């Protein structure tokens, strides 16, 4: 004796946010029912476990039917099958494309390939996020990646329009796409302390300043690939460390500016050449894809870690980088001002963001 068939269809599709979240989290119907029971819905509405099960199954089924549309959000607004109020549609899309920080940190910068997908069970075990949810998030990344790959125009705008995502989420996806495309290494132990939002911020900086799109906004992949010419130009910056005079001059300029303004002046003074060498070397190596991948790791190793060990505060770092950048402009024999500004602007904001006290 059993209920063989049980459906409920409303003219306006009924969707419970809480149940939707459980579905997105990859719960099975039974687990979801358990969670809901613990949540106290039953007492609230005098419902029985049976009622809850029926409702959960029904909604899970609805979500499953909607999933096809959610994968192409533009369709959701133009489909006839489900009558969903616009605000609900927005909620559905936003939540479907939302991802867990823990998850995204695991795949950020990895190639969005079948191989990575196969490893998702490890990610699932590590993060405690269900495999189903991992797969959804991964597929979202991949789908967005594939779509914007072929589009012209600004990356964030493309993502926002194509997937009807709110601005912040679109920016996050832009970061994910950018990282995946350039395969930045983010998984090393030294980088573990960084959150996704840290990386997303850096990605935003890189996209806005170092990509082709930063100069020309009507090229394919303009926001995804770094500006090759710019990278080539960066080699010229080597003069800052190769030329002994220039280096000393630079150092003295910075020291003059900073004297008495920071408690770590002495450490700064001793370390100046090392730090400068570190930053300029990063710039000089960026033509090599391998070194592009290690960009963040290099920043941490070559700059952040030394500063940390000398107990610089974020203000110290800010002060130092400001004067380090500006002083180079005063150097008479240094001719690469534009490239230097373009480079250091990004480096400064990235380091400041990545510099956790």
């Amino acid at each position, binding site marked *: 004796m*059993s209920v063989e068939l049980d459906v409920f269809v409303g003219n306006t599709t009924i969707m419970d946010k809480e149940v939707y979240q459980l579905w997105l989290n990859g719960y099975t119907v039974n687990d979801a029912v358990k969670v809901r029971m613990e949540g106290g819905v039953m007492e609230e509405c005098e419902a029985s476990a049976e009622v809850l099960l*029926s409702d959960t199954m029904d909604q899970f089924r609805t979500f499953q039917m909607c999933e096809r549309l959610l994968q192409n959000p533009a369709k959701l607004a133009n489909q006839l*099958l489900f009558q969903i109020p616009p605000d609900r549609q927005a909620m559905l899309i936003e939540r479907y494309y939302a991802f867990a920080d823990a998850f995204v940190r695991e795949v950020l910068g990895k190639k969005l390939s079948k191989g990575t997908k196969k490893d998702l069970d490890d990610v699932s075990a590590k993060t405690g996020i269900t495999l189903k949810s991992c797969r959804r998030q991964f597929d979202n990344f991949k789908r967005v990646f594939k779509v914007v790959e072929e589009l012209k125009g600004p990356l964030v705008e493309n993502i926002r329009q194509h997937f009807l995502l709110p601005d912040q989420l679109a920016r996050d996806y832009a970061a994910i796409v950018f990282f995946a495309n350039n395969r930045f290494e983010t998984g090393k132990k030294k980088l573990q302390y960084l959150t996704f939002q840290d990386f997303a911020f850096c990605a935003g900086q890189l996209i806005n300043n170092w990509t082709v799109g930063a100069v020309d906004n009507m090229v394919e992949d303009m926001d995804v690939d770094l500006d090759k010419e710019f990278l080539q130009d960066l080699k010229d910056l080597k003069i800052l460390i190769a030329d002994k005079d220039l280096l000393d001059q630079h150092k003295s300029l910075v020291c003059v500016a900073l004297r008495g303004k920071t408690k770590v002046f002495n450490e700064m003074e001793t370390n100046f050449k090392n730090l400068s060498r570190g930053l300029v070397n990063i710039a000089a190596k960026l033509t090599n894809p391998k070194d592009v991948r290690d960009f963040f790791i290099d920043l941490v190793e070559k700059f952040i870690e030394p500063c940390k060990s000398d107990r610089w505060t974020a203000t110290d770092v800010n002060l130092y980088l400001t004067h380090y950048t500006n002083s180079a402009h005063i150097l008479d024999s240094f001719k690469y001002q534009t490239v230097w500004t373009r480079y250091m602007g990004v480096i400064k904001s990235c380091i400041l963001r990545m510099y956790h006290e």
Partner: protein
Amino acid sequence: MPGKLKAKVVAGRHLPVMDRASDLTDAFVEVKFGTTTFKTDVCPKSLNPQWNSEWFKFEVDDEDLQDEPLQITVLDHDTYSANDAIGKVYIDIDPLLCSEAATVISGWFPIYDTIHGIRGEINVLVKVDLFNDLNRFRQSSCGVKFFCTTSIPRCFRAVLIHGFVEELVVNEDPEYQWIDRIRTPRASNEARQRLISLMSGELQRKIGLKVLEMGGNAVVGYLQCFDLEGESGLVVRAIGTACTLDKISSTYTAAIVQNLSNSSPSKDMKEAGFGEEAPGVPLSSGPPTPLRAQTFSSFSPSKSYSRQSSSSDTELSLTPKTGMGSGGSAGKEAGPLKALLRQQTQSALEQREFPFFTLTGFPPAFLLHVGGVVSARSVKLLDRIHNPDEPETRDAWWEELRQEIKSHAKALGCHAVVGYSESTSICEEVCILSASGTAAILSSRFVQDGALDTDHRFEDVAPPACGFCHIPYDELNMPFPAQLTYCHCCRRHKVPDVLFTTIDVPTEANVTGKGCLIQARLCRTKKKGQGEGNATAISNLLPFLEYELHTQLLNKLKLRGMNALFGLRVQISVGDTMLLGLASATGVYLTALPSPGGIQIAGKTPNDITYEQHISNMQKKINDTIAKNKELYEINPPEFVEEVIGSPIPEPRQRSRLFRSHSESSDEVLELDLSHGKKDAFVLEIDDTDAIEDIHSLLTDAPTPPGFYSCNTEIMPGIYNWTSGLQMFTSVRVFRLSNANLTNQGLNKIFNDLCENLLKSLYFKLRSMVPCCLCHVNFIVAVPEDELIQVAVTAVAMSFDKDQSQENGRQSGDKTLMKAITENEEQLQFPLELSAESPSNPLSCAKGLSEVSGPLPSARDRCSSWIEQLRLKAHTIRRGSIKTMSSLEKASPVPEGRSRSLRSNRSCPGSSITVVKMTPLSFIPGAKIIKYLGIINMFFIRETTSLREEGGVSGFLHSFIAEVFAMVRAHVAALGGNAVVSYSMKECVFMENPNKNQAQCLINVSGDAVIFIRESELEATPSQTQSGNVQTSSNGEGT
């Protein structure tokens, strides 16, 4: 050759990938009407093709226009093999044939395939040019309007209600033709869909012809059903009520309602008008407005009026002509004139073969008295039809049943049957035909035309609000034992103690507290059988089934402390091994009827102490439940000194308003007296386990959770302040009985639990809408297979405002209204008339009315011309009534903020899709229906051979129902509408074969496509301020 149909295919979108290699589709479209087919060009390699075709023109007879659907097929072009069909769209042209309905069909239609479901959408434009046809022998009936709504549609007024129309057509079911063995399931399904579409068209056309013959222009309460008889054929039958309707211009309605809801100014006008001369002013009746203004109840006969007619006795004198002569107090003051009048009414109705009305809601002053429910069933064998392809046999069956209904009504002293409906249940070769309705006495006001002139004025006295409760039959010769008391409202006429009806709660009725959904559920096992033996077994079971359902209903009604049932619908469903009975109704406490007594339990073995205790426990439980229910439903009737009067039977007995009979193929008629011998009505005797079960089941009905109400009628008495929150839904459950040897009790429990759990799930699902009321809850039960029970529910959840102050205000308002009715017979009914005419010539018309008090049938024809005049004077009306606006605005029960926030957004940004509301009710709360676009009547078949892959039976049915909704919405939107009212799912036949991974489902839905405007929007538009306010006022306080 009176019509040119034009169609244009614009574009497609979201098409499925038909070519795996390219992941694209080369789509083209075939447009077919009748035997003519046009094709578009192939739009290569696109999932969103733009065809932008020329206009395809079909020159056709209007007969074909009515019968045939426009058939649009989307195909994938294939160079080497046959073109693959992507899917089809059937477009019913009918709405374009009415001049007042839609003028163009234009929009995105889902492309539907019976195997794959919806596969993308297509944008189509359709127009019709009609040429006037003067041929009087024409076969078409273009221009007759059809409405599913079972009351006079909102923007019309009834000039005449002609009466019953029915038609039945038969065809061979394609699924049972020999060719079905060799064709694909898709071809077979499509043949079936197309045939039913054709048959529906033909049926409507034929009914339309009958309406034209009767002189009408519309069918209201159109109810069309399919009987899938199997081998013997496919029957499509329909019944309806032919009417002559007049469209009310908005200002006209406005004026009426304005004045209605504000009776004092009109009264002043009337007084001023007395004694004035009015030569040359044509008399027009007070037009019944289609709006259910609550305020109607406040108009009782005028002083001058009652003087002339002694109208207080009108009801009493209305004993049926065919009855046993006038008896008792009846007719004591009735002069010969009255008798004559009554006879005229009577004969007007009796001239008709079947004085039946499918309406459940009536224009004011139309329904005079209600006798009770009349029903008839008969069991037939389908394999005994001599000529299965011809409709004669079925016609005869129904004719027989209708005759029975008619005679039952007569026995109840009634000359008409209202709220009439017919249904069938088929299991293999056995078919149960059922008909039921409510015996009633109607005013001749709308049923008669012809010159009866001044004699007829008395009929137009608005009966007191309690009038319909007064017994229509002769109390000395009652058709069944009943306990009569004097009416608790007027205290002059007699009323029964319990009233069962199939109609909606009349707007003028005084109801104490709120109502609730009451269901009686029953399952009876039956031996498997064949042919005659099986039919006999079934017809032997039927009376018991009905008896028990009736008893259950009565007990449950008493348990809720209520005394009347509305919207009663008894379904009997037959399976191979069982019979299912489900009776649903809305219980209310009619103020006019006596308070119901409690329920007493009596044991058979009085000496057993534990037993006694058990019984007293139970008794206590019952008493507690009654008390709790009274509180829950706010039933606190005013004190009334009980005064039982002349019941011819000494002991109180259980009375039944149910008249029924069964007949089987042998035409035996069995009448059943449902009274319980000489037992007290309210005593339940526990003499066996059965009875204990009964009581248990009585008490296991879970109360609705807090914040919820439910009813199966249009609206819930006692709730007025609806918000615009609206959610129509369909829920289906199928239960498999794994245990083959179930007892009746076991089965009963399962069935009962199934229904209860379903309701509980609904409440849970809709909890976010609280406070809310499930309205028009409609259960359909079926036994699709041996061990399956299927229950389908369609209803609408409507939230209301729990603003107590408003509600209380409302209630107190009602009470004062009631008082006005019961105590003050001098109140005028005239506002109706005045509202129509006073703006143009207040003085003279009031004069006219005081002389000739009501709508004269002869004057009715002139009404229409009057409407024209009124339109011209609309300006005056506006100016005249604007004064009352501010006060009316306050009376709006819908807080503006809320209604605005909830209102549908027709043009939401980023979406081109019109939001289409669907509701089984005839109205949309907080909105005004401004146009009826035509009837929606759609039939779909869906089949799958990959059941598991589609998510099992639930997944399959879920998407199918969603698809049906989507297609209904798309068609409504294409007609230019934004809502479907009076929506119903009439059929949901589900068959599965999990072993073969297959399932099939047939769904038939219908409703009226309309355009509505939110009141808030109306108010916002200055030019329409008038009507906006009026609408508000009709919901709000009148006085």
